[in-house]
């Protein structure tokens, strides 16, 4: 067994539906303290359902074992380094989970009177203020539920501002290194997408940009540091250029973990940006959410922010709905509130100096990995790395082994893979972001694994092509899954049963 791993028993587990048995139950409701109502009499026979066919019936012990066994088939930050580039998989402090369950906050109803919501609203104000300070922006909305939702909100804000100036314009320029959500968002907000090719350094090409920006350009969507982990060295020129043409600059804040406490987007000309609170601010990814996509803006976009806004009226905080220029709501209520609590707890635990230290450690860890792996993997763009480094599989591909295969072999060494085959400007990309969370021993183990895999590819590429070798589940046939989609469990048919 390689790296930090050794075999242990992994249990099989059926689906809930397969272990179900009539009459089993895992709940106990209190006795009803009011008369029972006959549903057919109250709702009508046509509105009342029969039993839910094939719905699970299992005991409490079966429930806990089921989900515990399934959990052991997973990998999380709690188990080790999770170097997904641009995903910022940092430690999720457990105090965040505790405070999110504070009774008066977790059980607060969004429509309870404002006089009885002052604590809840204070959390919103504190977080908005902290994020404005960190980004150098003037105002923040916490309503968007995730990064892509924040992007959409941000682009809608741009459109609303331009419309108020008389012309919403037609297109948004997006570098070819951008996350897929950027073009998808621009399209969703009714804009045409114009891609711009990165220059030889993998950065925004200012001269090429100058040629395509015109009166039809609403905005540039830029990620900084960009997706190869490099700070856009011409960012001030870029933002000035856009502004000189009456266009705005949106910043995808997915990589904000590289900047906190060092530099502020508001200070280099960004008009509007989102933050992924589930990246930079440590709220757990939870297997794919919930996140939160706070959007920070400069003052000229503030009148357009989603309603309601939390405002101070004397000694009390209240919700202000009277904002005639607002784009409206992007989500019901105030957003993913429980995620906001967690992010604020992270900021409080670090404080200003601690946030900056976290950034420095994130830069140090990424550069330490880069230095150690550069002799073994090709690096097409060699500008200084910030919080992540991007290699290509060119050298390994010559032996027939691609970034996906290296990733699968890395699993055998006890690590989650890096981000595979992204950004698109790097052929066969390996995008590695360790975050500040990792200690030197964990980084060294990862480096050792990556070097060992490079050696394996030299000696026996076929072996790596069949990885992973030590997981309970070897390679999964994704092609068949897409060709013949089975998206839900169904009971075996009588014929199939007989065949069993």
């Amino acid at each position, binding site marked *: 067994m390689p790296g930090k791993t050794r075999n242990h028993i992994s249990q099989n587990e059926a689906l809930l539906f397969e272990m179900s048995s009539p009459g089993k139950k895992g709940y106990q409701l209190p006795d009803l303290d009011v008369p029972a109502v006959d549903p057919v009499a109250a709702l009508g026979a046509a509105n009342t359902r029969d039993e839910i066919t094939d*719905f699970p019936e299992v005991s409490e012990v079966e429930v806990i074992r089921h989900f515990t066994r399934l959990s052991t088939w997973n*990998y999380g930050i709690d188990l080790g380094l999770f170097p997904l580039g641009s995903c910022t998989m940092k430690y999720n402090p457990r105090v965040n989970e505790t405070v999110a369950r504070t009774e008066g906050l977790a059980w607060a109803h969004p429509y309870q009177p404002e006089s009885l919501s002052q604590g809840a609203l204070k959390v919103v104000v504190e977080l908005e203020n902290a994020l404005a300070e960190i980004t150098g922006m003037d105002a923040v909305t916490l309503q968007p539920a995730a990064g892509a939702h924040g992007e959409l909100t941000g682009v809608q804000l741009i459109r609303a501002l331009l419309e108020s100036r008389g012309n919403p314009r037609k297109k948004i320029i997006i570098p070819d290194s951008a996350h897929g959500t950027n073009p998808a968002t621009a399209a969703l907000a009714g804009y045409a997408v114009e891609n711009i090719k990165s220059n030889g350094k993998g950065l925004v090409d200012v001269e090429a940009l100058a040629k395509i920006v015109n009166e039809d350009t609403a905005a540039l969507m830029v990620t900084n540091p960009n997706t190869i982990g490099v700070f856009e060295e011409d960012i001030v020129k870029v933002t000035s250029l856009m502004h000189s043409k009456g266009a705005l600059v949106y910043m995808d804040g997915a990589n904000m973990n590289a900047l906190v406490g060092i530099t502020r987007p508001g200070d280099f000309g960004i008009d509007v940006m989102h933050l992924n609170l589930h990246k930079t601010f440590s709220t757990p990814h939870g297997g794919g959410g919930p996140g939160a996509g706070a959007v920070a803006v400069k003052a000229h976009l503030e009148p357009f922010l989603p309603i309601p806004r939390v405002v101070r009226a004397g000694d009390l905080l209240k919700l202000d709905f009277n904002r005639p220029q607002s784009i409206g*709501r992007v989500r019901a209520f105030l957003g993913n509130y429980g995620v906001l609590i967690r992010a604020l707890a992270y900021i409080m635990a670090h404080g200003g100096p601690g946030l900056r230290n976290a950034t420095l450690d994130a830069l140090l860890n990424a550069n330490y990995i880069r230095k150690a792996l550069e002799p073994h993997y090709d690096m097409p763009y060699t500008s200084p790395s910030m919080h992540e480094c991007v290699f290509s599989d060119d050298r390994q591909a010559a032996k027939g082994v691609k970034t996906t295969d290296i990733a699968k072999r890395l699993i055998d060494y006890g690590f989650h893979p890096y981000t595979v085959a992204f950004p698109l400007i790097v052929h066969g990309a390996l995008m590695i972001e360790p975050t500040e969370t990792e200690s030197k021993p964990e980084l060294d183990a990862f480096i050792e694994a990556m070097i060992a895999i490079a050696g394996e590819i030299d000696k026996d590429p076929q072996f790596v092509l069949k990885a992973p070798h030590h997981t309970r589940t070897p390679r999964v046939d994704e092609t068949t899954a897409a060709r013949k989609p089975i998206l839900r469990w169904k009971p075996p048919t009588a014929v199939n049963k007989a065949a069993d």
Partner: protein
Amino acid sequence: MLATLGLDSIERLYAHLPQEVLLNRPLNIAPGKSEYEIIDWFRARGEENAVGYACFLGAGAYYHYRPVMCDVVVSRGEFLTSYTPYQAEMAQGTLTTIFEFQTMICQLTGMDVANASMYDGSSAIPEGAMMAMRVTGRHKVLVARTVHPEYREVLATYSKYQGVPVEEVAYDAASGKLDLDDLAAKLDTQTAAIIIQSPNFFGCLEDTAKIAALAHAKGALLVFSFTEAVSLGLLEPPRDADIVVGELQSFAHPPSYGGPYAGIIATKEKFMRQLPGRLVGETKDANGNRAFCLTLSTREQHIRREKATSNICTNQALIALMATVYLSVYGKEGLRELALQNLSKAHYLADGLPLRFSGAFFNEFVVKADSPEAVNDALLKEKIVGGLPLGKYYPELSGCLLLCATEMSKREHMDKVKGAIA
């Protein structure tokens, strides 16, 4: 580590940044606090809210008991601290639970396929509308005025920037249900979908089958939504709908001042490839054993970019897992019994009160009150948060309160509410 990099100070790591962009002062954020201080600060904020009150608010956020098991499972680091399961070989746990979730949503809604989750019920509405436009190739949407007002506001924001005309369909002033005549008048051959909610914002059940028939006769789709997921335990599922969207907060998540919740979107098999968001499918691994993976990703933004069905990426996986645990704990019998308790409590609360509408209701209903605010003020003195005054959302209902009772509503508190209104 610095020495390995040949650096004499950690600040050298960003020495290449343009000088003019550097922040030359400390962030104006107080120094770090201890775990105890942080917990204490949030406890104090909680106590500034309504702690120890009985509450009869619903309207899209419901008080339901949360079985202990839900937090136990989602607190496991293997679920909590994992990423979106792109690497199937080390994410079979998450993938299996999502497959179970998709199955349960189908069983509850009567649909064939469901995705891995949406942000919440409100943002699922425009996603449902856009999906209907892709399916029909039409470019106009009708929405019932009985759909949650904030959901309709979210739809308005999305549609405004896509130039999609959205028209509202009136409700019948007596029954509190969608006005079928108004719907028939507004449906035309350009209508992509009619969006309804049932139980609707007033708590009343809509005539889903009749609405579906009217829509289908004009080639439009029915997008059915719900805010109170517990109702699915008892109510006939919307089998006539083409797309079902909804909010799952009732399944294990506390109201939490509005989020994080989890939305769903489900549909018929023939529309599967127009679904937004993530889907988990069954397949086999190299040993021939059953395994699961994310699938049909050519619909999604990371592959299709500006041609994707949606820009959604991170969704609400952990909340969906919580709902899956919740549904496993209650199971087939429990969900029905739970729904029956909600029905019984709400009808006890409503009994003898001046109901505004005649439509059948599940666990929410509208009552008339000369001054809803005075009723609520009186109740607050008894440590009860009353109902939602409707005048803000429906000026014609300014003398009305929306009340909700769940299995957590106690008879003694309900008697006080009845006393304050009657």
